[in-house]
């Protein structure tokens, strides 16, 4: 039995040699015509399902662009992953590790974590690198005058909340019918969970319904007492503002206490396949918000399938069953918005690798109308987006979907958010931030 030992010791040597080589040659050869996009993702920990799905779609989209078009106008896209574990300190480490990569530095950052986004706002603004937060992050960063480098694209939490109340109004037969209705906001006990309390209170006052906020402490795997409280209160609707394991547990416990699931409305971080399948039959009928649908019936997804997953190619996704899932499609949307911003900036600054500052201009002038969305093969996957210096959100509409036990079915069209409620709150909050930090807001007429 000498041989296996010899092999294992040789293997150890090879491993050691690889390690040394890896460290020595980790500085890559600088190719000049490349745009570097850092991927600060998370593949382990309690939220890994969200991380692997979204970044899978994101990376696959970039891969597809490289293979189909050779990148953006001939500028090849490169990326490198960095594990954040959804932790703020690891996220900041990734930010600093990757910000100067590539010929022009990082084009932008997408952390898919509200906490890391908060922690990097000041750093990124000082370094002139945009931070994009699609459907999470600071809601008041929609005011681009105070937050020039932060882009909460598509919709923020507050917009979502107003669209949801509108949806409930539609279901009840008109906004005036909301009067006297009882709504319970069941929220995750974190910064993310608390974010919509003030806007719900404001709307309750405006439309005359009552709202009760019930907190579920992180991580939320025990909700018996909360749901007993809900059963006693007999609300007309329950808003589920959950994250991770809290979502299936909420649905299962609701079934146990006999609360109808089709009167529970989740936010978009409670509305992926991973949130409902563990609850099994208890999830049937549950409604959730979405800023994009699931499914593979979009030309852009078929392009990815064709170029990244066939003919011996292997994409970023390990389990092909997740292709076209909510998280995966969210990743594709990340890819589209990020690369279209680069494309917009290239139209102004030239077809070459761009700096973060130039990409910022592209983001601020991003305009995806229906025609462009059709060209991208993402019509109906993504709503039309128009970003401006004043408005870093750009979209603001939400669709609603219902789980039928097997898949998400869309049950509404795009429902516009009520910016007459959201915008004053955004501006007030951003102004308070500017005052606290001593920032003079930009004058958008001069941009």
């Amino acid at each position: 039995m000498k041989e296996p030992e010899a092999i294992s010791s040789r293997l150890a040597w090879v491993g050691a040699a690889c390690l040394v080589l890896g460290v020595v040659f980790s500085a890559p050869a600088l190719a000049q015509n490349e745009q570097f996009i850092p991927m600060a993702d998370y593949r382990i920990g309690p939220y890994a399902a969200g991380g692997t799905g979204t970044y899978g779609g994101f990376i696959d989209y970039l891969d597809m662009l490289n293979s189909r078009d050779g990148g953006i106008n001939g500028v090849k896209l490169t990326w490198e992953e960095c594990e954040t574990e959804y932790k703020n300190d690891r996220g900041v480490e990734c930010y600093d590790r990757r910000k100067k990569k590539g010929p022009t530095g990082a084009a932008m950052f997408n952390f898919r974590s509200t906490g890391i986004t908060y922690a990097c706002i000041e750093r990124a603004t000082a370094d002139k690198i945009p931070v994009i937060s699609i459907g999470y992050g600071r809601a008041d960063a929609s005011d681009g005058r105070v937050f020039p480098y932060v882009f909460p694209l598509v919709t923020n939490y507050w917009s979502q909340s107003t669209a949801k109340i509108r949806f409930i109004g539609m279901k009840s037969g008109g906004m005036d019918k909301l009067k006297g209705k009882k709504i319970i906001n069941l929220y995750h006990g974190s910064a993310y969970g608390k974010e919509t309390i003030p806007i719900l209170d404001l709307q309750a006052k405006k439309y005359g319904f009552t709202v009760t906020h019930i907190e579920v402490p992180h991580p939320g795997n025990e909700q018996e007492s909360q749901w007993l409280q809900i059963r006693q209160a007999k609300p007309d609707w329950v808003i589920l503002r959950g994250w991770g394991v809290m979502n299936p547990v909420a649905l299962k416990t609701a079934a146990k206490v006999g609360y109808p699931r089709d009167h529970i409305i989740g936010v978009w971080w409670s509305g992926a396949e991973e949130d409902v399948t563990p609850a099994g039959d208890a999830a049937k009928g549950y409604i959730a918000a979405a800023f994009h649908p699931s499914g593979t019936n979009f030309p852009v997804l078929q392009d990815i399938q064709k170029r990244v997953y066939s003919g011996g190619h292997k994409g970023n996704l390990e389990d092909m069953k997740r292709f076209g899932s909510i998280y995966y499609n969210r990743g594709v949307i990340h890819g589209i918005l990020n690369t279209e911003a680069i494309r917009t900036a290239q139209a102004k600054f030239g077809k070459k690798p761009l700096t973060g500052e130039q990409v910022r201009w592209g983001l601020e002038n991003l305009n995806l109308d229906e025609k462009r969305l059709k060209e991208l093969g993402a019509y109906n996957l993504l709503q039309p987006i128009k970003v401006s210096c004043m408005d870093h959100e750009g979209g603001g509409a939400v669709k609603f979907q219902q789980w039928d036990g097997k898949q998400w079915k869309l049950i509404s069209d795009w429902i516009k958010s009520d910016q007459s409620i959201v915008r004053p709150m955004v501006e007030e909050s951003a102004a308070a931030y500017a005052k606290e930090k001593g920032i003079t807001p930009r004058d958008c007429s001069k941009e």
Partner: protein
Amino acid sequence: MIYREAGQFKSTYKEDQQIFPIRQDRIALAAILIAGFVLVPLAGNDYWFNAILIPSLILALAALGLNILTGYAGQLSLGSAGFMAVGAFGAYNLMLRVPHMPVLGSFFLAGIVAAAVGLLFGLPSLRIKGFYLAVTTLAAQFVIEWALTKFAWFSNYNPSGVISAQKMVILGYRFDSPVRRYVLTLSIVAVLALAAKNLVRSRVGRAWMAVRDMDVAAEVIGIPMLRTKLLAFGVSSFYCGVAGALWAFAYLGSVEPQAFDLTRSFQILFMVIVGGMGSILGSFLGAAFIVLLPIFLNVTAHSLFSGGVSQSLASNLELMAFGALIIFFLAVEPFGLARLWQTGKEKLRLWPFPH
């Protein structure tokens, strides 16, 4: 040969009682401090300051705080992150609500506030010991996190409960760039570490160790339990509080209560265990090990396996390697990294003629 104290005669009490009695230690310490204050700021880059040095130093300070309580006074605590949170939110509120509050003053007072909270949660230590005490400090961890989330006043009514640290200006000098924040952190940590080193050799420190080794015997020889144990809780929480304030102000710039959750408490406890119980040096070694190793593994995993292995697998391998290395180090040296250094030191004193 080099590391030998032969010929260093102590002729006065003062010399006999100095903190570092061996000349080589004094030279080494001076060299480390000069390197830390002069060479590193000249040679380092933003990545090193922001991602490596500042967090390691701050967590070393927190580990030092826990080491005072657990390593020296023998009281097991799982609430360190909670006390860090008190420090972070305390410094923020002091800066916000007290006019003309100097930054260093707010750090100091935040430490005092944390110490007060620590005293409160230290009270059960008079009746219960060991793992039971750990459970009551666990309560501190949860109560503090809950209170900071529940009462919006602490975060100045920020809708998401996140505080955003004020700018640090000391005597008109702004500590905003990474290198300046590093120097500020290093100064505070160096001063507090020196104070701790002194404290543990003083009457108080000896009383702590007596309590740790056998509290009944300590009581019999006249060490007041109440004062000694509570002082350990107070001093330990002070260190954790200052570390928390630095975490918010010098490192992240914005924190939420969840940044100081139970995982962080465990992380600090692991630093103390891996680094070495009852050792100032061990706190620094432990912090370096726990902070730097995952980053090092992440960097190597990505350069080693790039393309070959899927990223999810690489990330999981990292975690496994991290766990395996902790077990390896503890199996080789159960008393921590500081003990390894001590053994090495003793060998060096005999080298090259071991007998």
